[in-house]
């Protein structure tokens, strides 16, 4: 008897261990497994890269959608900083979320559903309501893979108090880089402990292309060649300009994005996206936002890179129609307004109704948006962007790292040669 009891116990434990392992696997997949058959609701997974307060807001918006819908239930998955890794893993195992935030179309478009047919069904006004420049950033080869849900361009942030202290006029939309340099020099001189301008040591190559565009050049020419473009005189001019400011001591190269230095008034000006508006406002910093200065010799307005995010549908989704319904909701007018605190609305109608062009902090971003249409980032064109981007980032570091400050032309020639 004892032996039989012992055996039963062993087998029982064994079974429990094995089944608990299996059970977890099932739950990792969509919840639709068992429940879906009983409820008639279609379950959709929605992945977001936000965290903290933004995530709370998003959860509430998702709950509102679920309450208003009889047939669809959306579950919000917060991936946070690991977003790219998790999405890659999901796509690799053909288990990506149905709806997801997307910005890196070149890398992921093979796992995404083309949305052209869905857009056409909505009628011609649907597309027109979005700012034109955004569609290029959410498409690959003329096929749309994401509905624009947010964007930012970059603008010049400046500390009004430091400007007052140095007795200089605030920057305006028709400033040139020479004006900025002069102001930076004056501020560094007159304000103790502060530098006039700051920029990143580890400049993101994706962002940095905008400075080259502003001076009439770019990473690559029309045929995709680096040589003659990234190391052209105009490109070299841009990098040398920034490097000079550091050498003269009027600019500081920051380890991070530069927002920390702005918040602690260690720098009077820096260029960034709209992400820091909220933080700076909360700090109570007396700051202003203006368009990026133009290069005097370029004869054109400054151009900004667009960081546009869109909402995409997974190619392997089993509920694409339901996913499309959710995408429309999330990118519609109501939600553009609901997210206005941390994401610039992409719909013309919302910009008009909320009078954003009168908002001193937000209007410059829209001006930059209009100045920046017609440019396609190299990352969208080149296949091997991950390798090129790496090389570029390393080269920029060599140029801007205060311990190295290498000669610009040499470094850029090396990049072009690879």
């Amino acid at each position, binding site marked *: 008897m004892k032996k039989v009891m*012992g055996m039963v116990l062993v087998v029982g*434990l064994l079974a429990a261990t094995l089944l608990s392992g299996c059970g977890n696997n099932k739950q990792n997949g969509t919840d639709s497994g068992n429940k879906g058959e009983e409820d008639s609701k279609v379950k959709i997974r929605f992945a977001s890269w936000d965290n903290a307060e933004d995530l709370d807001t998003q959860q509430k918006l998702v709950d509102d959608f679920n309450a208003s819908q009889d047939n669809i239930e959306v579950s919000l998955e917060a991936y946070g900083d690991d977003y790219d890794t998790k999405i890659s893993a999901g796509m690799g195992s053909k288990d990506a979320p149905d709806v997801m935030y997307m910005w890196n179309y070149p890398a992921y478009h093979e796992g995404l559903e083309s949305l052209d047919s869905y857009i056409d069904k909505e009628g011609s006004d649907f597309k027109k309501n979005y700012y034109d420049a955004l569609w290029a950033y959410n498409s690959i080869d003329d096929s749309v893979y994401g509905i624009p849900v947010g964007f930012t361009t970059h603008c010049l942030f400046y500390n009004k108090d430091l400007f007052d202290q140095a007795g200089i006029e605030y920057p305006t939309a028709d400033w040139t880089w020479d004006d900025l340099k002069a102001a930076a020099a004056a501020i560094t001189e007159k304000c103790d402990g502060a530098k006039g301008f700051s920029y990143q040591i580890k400049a993101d190559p994706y962002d940095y292309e905008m400075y080259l565009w502003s001076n009439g050049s770019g990473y690559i020419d029309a045929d995709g060649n680096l040589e003659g473009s990234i190391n052209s005189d105009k490109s070299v001019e841009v990098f040398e300009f920034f490097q000079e400011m550091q050498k003269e001591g009027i600019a500081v190269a920051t380890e991070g994005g530069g927002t920390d230095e702005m918040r602690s008034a260690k720098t009077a000006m820096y260029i960034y996206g709209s992400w820091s508006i909220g933080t700076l406002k909360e700090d109570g910093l007396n700051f202003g936002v203006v368009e990026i200065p133009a290069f005097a010799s370029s004869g054109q307005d400054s151009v900004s890179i667009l960081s546009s995010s869109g909402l995409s549908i997974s190619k392997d989704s089993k509920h694409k129609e339901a996913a499309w319904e959710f995408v429309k909701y999330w990118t519609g007018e109501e939600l553009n307004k609901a997210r206005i605190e941390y994401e610039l609305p992409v719909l013309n109608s919302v910009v008009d109704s909320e009078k954003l062009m009168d908002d001193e902090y937000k209007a410059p971003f829209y001006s930059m948006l209009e100045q920046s249409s017609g440019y396609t980032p190299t990352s969208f064109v080149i296949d091997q962007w991950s390798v090129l981007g790496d090389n570029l980032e390393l080269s920029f570091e060599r140029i801007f790292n205060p*311990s190295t400050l290498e000669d610009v032309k040499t470094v850029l020639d090396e990049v072009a040669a690879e």
Partner: protein
Amino acid sequence: MKKKQLIKKATPYLFISPWVIGFLLFTAGPLLLSLIMSFFNWPIIGDSSFIGMGNYVEMFTQDSQFWKSMVLTLKYAAIFVPLNLGIALFLAMLITQPIRGVKVFRTIFYLPAVVSGVAISILWKWILNGDYGILNYLLSLIGIEGPKWLVDPAWALFAVILASAFGVGTMMLIFYTDIKNIPIELYEAASLDGASPARQFFSITLPIITPTILFNVITSMVSAFQQLTLVMLLTGGGPLKSTYFYGMFVYDNAFKHRRLGYASANAWIMFIIILLLTSLVFKSSSAWVYYGTEVKTAKGGKKK
């Protein structure tokens, strides 16, 4: 009769089967899969294609970063292992001293090893900050202007080594238990013969704990080669790739460049290298490790 015999024989296997199944599913299985993947061109999204030794050939002949990262990691291991061993041994000797409050010190010395690697990285990132960091502040108090640890390529590696010393607690504890186990009669006999504390250390303590030293050398060597968390969070491989350890190289190949096949090949090469080095250490161990159960023969005998 036969059924009872079968059950009797099968029971131990049933007991270990949960672990065995887990091992097969989660360790051996993926290991085998990654070996297979290393012979493929396997992008994360898209189709994979068989390329035989292609990945390995590319690694050794076309990828300069492979060699750079490998050399860098070897350099790091060469400094990290002796340094950490030395610190661990020193601290272990300290806490074996019979002084008041030694238990408190034992806890304090061990505490950093318990903190999660991520938390340590973030902590050190702030300590090592060039402008606002505590380390530079302390240095300035004695008149030295500290370098920008995480920005200057010349100092970044040293900064990483400094931060990784936090994990020395585990090794220290292992040394401590071993040292505590040395019979006190040996020390008494030595001091009767007039041996100084230093002499006692080198002639009694050190030889007896050589098995533990061997263990710690191997484990710290393996973990040095696999170092990833600290580097990823503290420097991101920079500045200017001066801390781009092999672990980061593999990770970037897998998730940044999305080449799972290539990354798997990288990982297997690392495995082979660690295997080679470990067996080298083992081979050499017969020369310097003293096991208490060995009997000294006339021919054998320990080299000093």
